[in-house]
Structure formats: structure tokens, C-alpha cells
């Protein structure tokens, strides 16, 4: 049950697997495969047993209820990015444009040991866990801590490279000791975990209260990178003040703007066609006028009011213009091959115009070198080159 469902590539869907079922872009559901269960959509039910054994990525088709049509889902293996998309939007989420930039900027790799506070929805935790050596996540809200712990266990993260701790880091700092509410497993006589973090991510309302606690848990012999994630500019200002005070350097503040575009088509409606359509209308109208003129000439009633009125209300149905190059009136499906189309992009109708300001800073605690070691290496090199 605690397989590393995120980080190990799987070929076939197996009993007990956590899958993400893609119904539509806005409807991606985490589902644990259990052969006696079914996955229900409003189009119909998909028995798990029909899914188990198929390769990941399989489209599953059923006949829809009461009709002869088909309904589809796709069964995917979870990834941190798909997981993020599956979360309800009301949750506070660090989205992929931000998380991916932060990871790249802080050079995340298997070499990284990461501190994250707070855990929040856990979306960023998953992305970190996929890519780094170890993740120490801190969450101050007890209920959220419990939920995240449970989720991380189910996703195999706790057994792999993630530690989560219940803590208000602004008050209590980052040291993890025996007796704390934490997933950390102390080995033998160990009384405190050794974090040695070289990457720090603070998604806190008051990061300036947490920054002073960092020195005791970050790596001392290498450059450590820090990112504070703050929605308001005043938070940035206060963060900058504290960063300077505590010796963090190379400060950079940025915003990340992510945009998503839909691929669409617009009908190509040429001037010539528009002109031809107008000519057609004019022709029919003139025919109508002439016919009325004939009627008018043959009638005794010299008041042309009635006939003129018809003219104002529009020419009779039978005379309606026939030339219809743009399929006006009938709804045309975008891309209909009877028409010419131009490919266009359309940005989402509601864009995430701001998430947070990202303040980066770096620190090297121990700025010395081991002169003895350097000399030894040099001697051995020089000896070699003399040989």
C-alpha cells in the first residue's frame, strides 16, 4: 500500500495502485485500484477490474447509460504535476510555474537536502520529493499536519525521503528532537535529527520570524539557498531587512508569471466572399422591388404603404439570399472542413495574475578552507607532475 507510486515508473496498473483518473482537464481524481470497486462518472461506471492489468495511460471506454454512445476516461500514474492539477482550486497551492522555477533556481537534484515550511496542501512537497535527496517539511496547523502525514504515507514518501514535523517554525525553529510530533525515526541514541539543509523554502506569513532559526539547521560547509514565498510587497520589504541582518547575500526578488493557451481556430472569411454575399442580397432585394413594382402597377390602391411595410420588415422568405459562404445562421463546429480556418491561441479566460513574490537569498556559513588539506593535495599533484 505504500509503494513509491510517484517516483517509480510503473508499466501496468495493479491492484492497490494509486492512480489518477483523468475525466477532463478540470476533473482529475485520485483513485486507489480495488478490484471490487467501480469509478462512477455521470456518464457511467468504470469497474476497477476492467482497468487493472492494463498499461498506465490506457483509455477506458464504456457504453454510456441508456444510449449507444461511448464514454472515456484515461488512467494515469500520478506525478507531482498531475497531482497538483487534481487538487481542488480553493486549497492554497504552490503551482508548477512557481515550484519549478524555485527548484531550478535553487539547483535541486539528488544532492539537495530541503527544508519546507509550511507543508500546506503538500503539492510542492511532492515535487521536491521526486527530485531531491531528502525533504524536511514543517506544518504548524495540526489538522493539516495529520492530513499531510497520512497522505505522504499513502504515497510512499515517508518511507522514502520525506520527513514531516508538526511545528510553528517561527516560534520553535527547525530542530527536530525526540518527543516532537514528527515522522522522523530516531536511530539508536540519536536525540536530534541532523538536517544539514542546503535548500530552504519558506511559505509563511512572517518568514522574518523563521529566518533567524535557520543557522543551526543548514549546512555549514556549502552555499545554502533560500526562497521566501510572500504575496504582499510589504512582506518582501520586511524579509529583505531580516535577510541582510542575518547575513544572507545575493538577494534576488522575482515574480513568476505562468500563462496557459488554448489552441483554437478562427474561420477565414475573405473580403470577396463578403462582397459576393452582399451582391446576392442586393440581387434578391432588387427582384423583390421589381416584383412589388409590378404588383403596384397592377393595383388600383395608390397607397403603397402596405407593400412598403413589407419592404421594411424584410423581403419575403422565398426571396431570401442564398449565398452563404460563412454558414451564417447554422452553428458551425470549429474546424469544420467545409470552411477554411486559421489556427489561433487564446489565453485562459481567467489568469492567475499573481501568486507570490519570490525572494531568494544565499548564505555560506563557514567561509574558510582547510589549508592543510589543500596543501596535501597540491603536494601530491606536484609530485605526480614531477614523476
Amino acid at each position, binding site marked *: 500500500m505504500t509503494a513509491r507510486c510517484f*517516483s517509480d*515508473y510503473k*508499466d501496468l496498473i495493479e491492484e492497490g495502485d494509486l492512480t489518477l483518473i483523468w*475525466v*477532463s482537464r478540470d476533473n482529475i481524481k485520485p483513485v486507489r485500484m480495488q478490484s471490487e470497486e467501480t469509478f462512477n462518472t455521470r456518464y457511467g461506471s468504470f469497474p476497477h477490474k476492467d482497468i487493472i492489468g492494463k498499461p498506465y*495511460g490506457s*483509455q477506458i471506454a464504456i457504453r*454510456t447509460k441508456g444510449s449507444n*454512445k*461511448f*464514454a*472515456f476516461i*484515461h*488512467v*494515469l500514474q500520478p*506525478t507531482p*504535476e498531475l497531482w497538483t492539477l487534481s487538487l481542488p482550486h480553493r486549497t492554497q497551492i504552490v503551482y*508548477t510555474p512557481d515550484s*519549478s*522555477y524555485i*527548484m*531550478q533556481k535553487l*539547483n535541486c*537534484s539528488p*544532492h*539537495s537536502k530541503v527544508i519546507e515550511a509550511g507543508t500546506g496542501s503538500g503539492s510542492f512537497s511532492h515535487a521536491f520529493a*521526486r*527530485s531531491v535527496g531528502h525533504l524536511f517539511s514543517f506544518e504548524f496547523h495540526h489538522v493539516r499536519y495529520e492530513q499531510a502525514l497520512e497522505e505522504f504515507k499513502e504515497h510512499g514518501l515517508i518511507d522514502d525521503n520525506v520527513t514531516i514535523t508538526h511545528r510553528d517554525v517561527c516560534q520553535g525553529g527547525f530542530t527536530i528532537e525526540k518527543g516532537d510530533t514528527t515522522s522522523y525515526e530516531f536511530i539508536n541514541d540519536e536525540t536530534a535529527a541532523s538536517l544539514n539543509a542546503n535548500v530552504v523554502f519558506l511559505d509563511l506569513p512572517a518568514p522574518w520570524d523563521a529566518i533567524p532559526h535557520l543557522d543551526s539547521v543548514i*549546512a555549514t*560547509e*556549502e*552555499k545554502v539557498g533560500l526562497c521566501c514565498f510572500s504575496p504582499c*510587497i510589504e512582506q*518582501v*520589504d520586511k524579509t*529583505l*531587512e531580516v535577510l541582510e541582518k542575518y547575513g544572507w*547575500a*545575493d*538577494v*534576488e*526578488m*522575482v*515574480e*513568476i*508569471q*505562468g*500563462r*496557459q*493557451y488554448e*489552441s483554437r481556430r478562427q474561420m477565414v472569411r475573405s473580403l470577396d466572399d463578403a462582397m459576393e454575399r452582399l451582391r446576392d442580397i442586393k440581387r434578391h432585394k432588387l427582384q423583390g422591388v421589381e416584383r412589388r413594382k409590378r404588383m403596384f402597377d397592377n393595383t388600383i390602391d395608390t397607397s403603397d404603404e402596405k407593400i412598403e411595410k413589407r419592404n421594411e420588415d424584410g423581403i419575403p422568405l422565398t426571396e431570401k439570399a442564398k449565398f452563404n459562404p460563412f454558414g451564417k445562421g447554422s452553428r458551425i463546429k470549429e474546424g469544420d472542413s467545409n470552411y477554411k480556418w486559421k489556427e489561433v*491561441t487564446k489565453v485562459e479566460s481567467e489568469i492567475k495574475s499573481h501568486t507570490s*513574490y519570490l525572494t531568494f537569498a544565499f548564505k555560506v556559513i*563557514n*567561509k574558510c*578552507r*582547510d589549508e592543510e588539506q*589543500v596543501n596535501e*593535495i*597540491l603536494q601530491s599533484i606536484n609530485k605526480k607532475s614531477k614523476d
Partner: protein
Amino acid sequence: MEPLTTIDFNQHVIVRLPSKNYKIVELKPNTSISLGKFGAFEVNDIIGYPFGLTFEIFYDNEDSTAVEKTDSKPKNKIPIGKVRLLSQEVEDESNDKDDSHSEPPLSTKEKSVSVELSNINSSATNQNLVNMGSKAQELTIGEIEQMKQESLSSKEIIDKIIKSHKSFHNKTVYSQEKYLNRKKQKFAKYFTVEYLSSSNLLQFLIDKGDIQRILDMSQESMGMLLNLGNIQPNGNYLCMDETGGLLVYFLMERMFGGDNESKSKGKIVVIHENEHANLDLLKFANYSEKFIKEHVHTISLLDFFEPPTLEEIQERFTPLPKEEARALKGGKKNSYYRRLRWYNTQLQVMDLTGKFLYDGLVVATTLHLPTVVPKLAEKVHGSRPIVCYGQFKETLLELAHTLYSDLRFLAPSILEVRCRPYQSIRGKLHPLMTMKGGGGYLMWCHKVIPAPEPISEATVE
């Protein structure tokens, strides 16, 4: 020493200069490195320090003889100085290029006045400052050059420059700082040594103006590509890289963290359109040749889509029994082993092109994407991501439409990500006034396996 965190011999590192430019250097023992107008230093003097530190170059009064040093390249007689760690404050400078417009609120000005300015008078506004151009500065360029010859420290030079500026006291504190920063960038002699990460290599290429060569890539687009591609240490990735190896380096750094000792089994298979793959930029990587050979394989488009059969291979070469091969002599032996290598490569091509399915497809090419991507994607496992980088949105749009009408691809999306840097000086916070345009776009989708049932009109999506 740990080469990932510590400055080590025979490593490529990136050096950041006061001008905000970058330089890549290789740290050969017992050599010196020249930074042009910013001075020169001994490699041995910086070995063993952690990355990220800033060193100042200084000169003792006597010891400015530089030419005796053994250095392979001819030098313009830039004197080699000694280095010492620079105190931190100098590093945090204005990071905006042109900020003439942003006169800060008076009340916040005092906070951020540089040390150099604390004893200088300044004006509340620029009202009395008339543009005198270079006339206001009484020092001639010759005199300044003279000072540099005399190996004065940059601080001393800058102090003299300030004293020689006629209307310096007429400038606002803000203008004074700007002037100072400009001068510092010109005369300061310090440098920062950083690990040559993929992002730093990209930054170096952008600074060098090699933007077209790397398809106008940005750090943010690459970071997003790595995450959307779900790149992991043990994955096998199919890749087209028209950036000379930069994309491959991004993948490697994410997968292996620069660690030659990494036990991860991930592979990158690079498909190229020319006879040979161009991965030139990997020469800057600190991975060993052996490590690269083990984790990066290159196959031409032709060999990938029309791989040789075992028969064809064996027609051209069949290995001898080991004893026979060992018994060969001289040219014959060399020739044999060359052919054996060819043979093994061909067998590997067969392995990587047959029924093998990849864990992701990552593409950065100027070939026509709608013809290339669906073909390559045939070799991608279901549920695995396909991420395509493109300099232009229009080419990805065409690709997205093609993939959209193909049931093997789930939800192709076109994404853009842009990083907007700020001037991060307190009291003067604002986005940088100018920045590089471009940065490209991404197409992201997942490979899926259409259901075998006949497909009618109604779909859930």
C-alpha cells in the same frame, strides 16, 4: 574535497565579475587566471573554499611581477594579485541597469546610503545639476589608468574619483550611488566563484549573446520543462536537443546532481538530425567522459526510425572469439577493436530503438514539430509526459492542433512562463525597468493508449 560544494582542481567553474558578466574557467593546478581589467589571480589560492564566495584581488606594493608565472596562454601582462575574501556588503548592489527615473522617497533615502558616501554632501534634488558630461570629472582617463598601473585598490581609486568630481555634491544621494556603482563596475577588482550549474551555464550563454544558438531558452522555461517532464534519476528519456547539449545538461543536472558517483541508472537518448550529435556544451560539464558515455547515448533520426537489423550489422562485422582478437597485432588489432566498438554501438542502437519504451520525450528542435513529435512519441510509454520546447508559440500551436486530433495524446497545452526580476533594494522596490524578451514556450501533453473499442461521437471530454 567535495566538488559539488567546494572549489576543486580541474573543474570548470563560473566566475561572476563586478560588471555582472560571467566567465567560465577551468581550474588547473599551479596556473593563474586573468579577468582582464578586473585583475588576475592564482588558481591555487581559491581551491578548497566553498562555492558562492567573493574574493577581492589585491596587490602588495612590491610583488607585482606577473610574467614569471607559467601559464600556457600569452598574457597582456595583467599583474597577478593575491586574493582575500570580500566583506559582504559590496556584493549587494543596485541590480538595475537604468534607474534614473526612480527617485526614491526622501524619507527612506538615508537607510541605504553606501559607506563611501557617508561623508559626502549631497543635494535633495537634481535641480541644480546641469549636465556637464565628462567635463565634471577632472581626472583624465590617463590619470585613472596611471592609478590602475600603480595597483591601487579599487576603493582607493574610487575615493580619488569622487574627490575629483566637481559637481558630485550637487547630485542627489541616489545619483551619487548610481555614479559610484558605475565606477565600481569599471575599477573594482573582485569576483565570485560559483558552481557551473545548468542555470549558470545558460546565464553565461545568454550574457555572451548566444541566444539564438540556444533557441532563446530561459531558466524558467527549462525549470518548468524538467518538472512537467517528470524528470527523475532513474528515468529513460528520449530527447532532441538543438541547443548544443544545454538541454541535455539540464536533464543530467536534475537527474544526477553533478555527481560522477551517482548510482542512478537513468539514461538520456539523444536523437539528432545531422550525422553526429552536437553536444559541445557538455565539455563544460564536470561529469567524467565515462559517466557521460554510460548515461547519454546519441542516435541519428535515420538510425532511430530505420535501425539496422542484426543481419545487416553482422554482414559488416562479426566479432572474433576473444582469444583470436587478443592475438591480433599492431594496426590490425587497432582496426579490429575500432570495428568492435562500432559493432557494439550498433547493437545498442538496436536495443534503444526496438520495443523499448521511454519514460518521457523532451524536445527542443527547429524541425517541423507536427512531423517529428508524433513519430518520436511512438516510443514513449503510456501515461508518460511529452514536453516540447519552442522558441515561437506559433510552431507549438501547429503541433498542439496536430496532437489534439490524435487519440494517442492527452490534452496538449501550450504554456508560457516568465520570470520578472525586481530591483530588491529596500525603499526602492520595483520591477527592473528593462529585461530580456523571449524565453520560449512549452507544449505539454501525456502519451496515452486509445481504447480498442470503436469510437463514436460522444466523448466525456
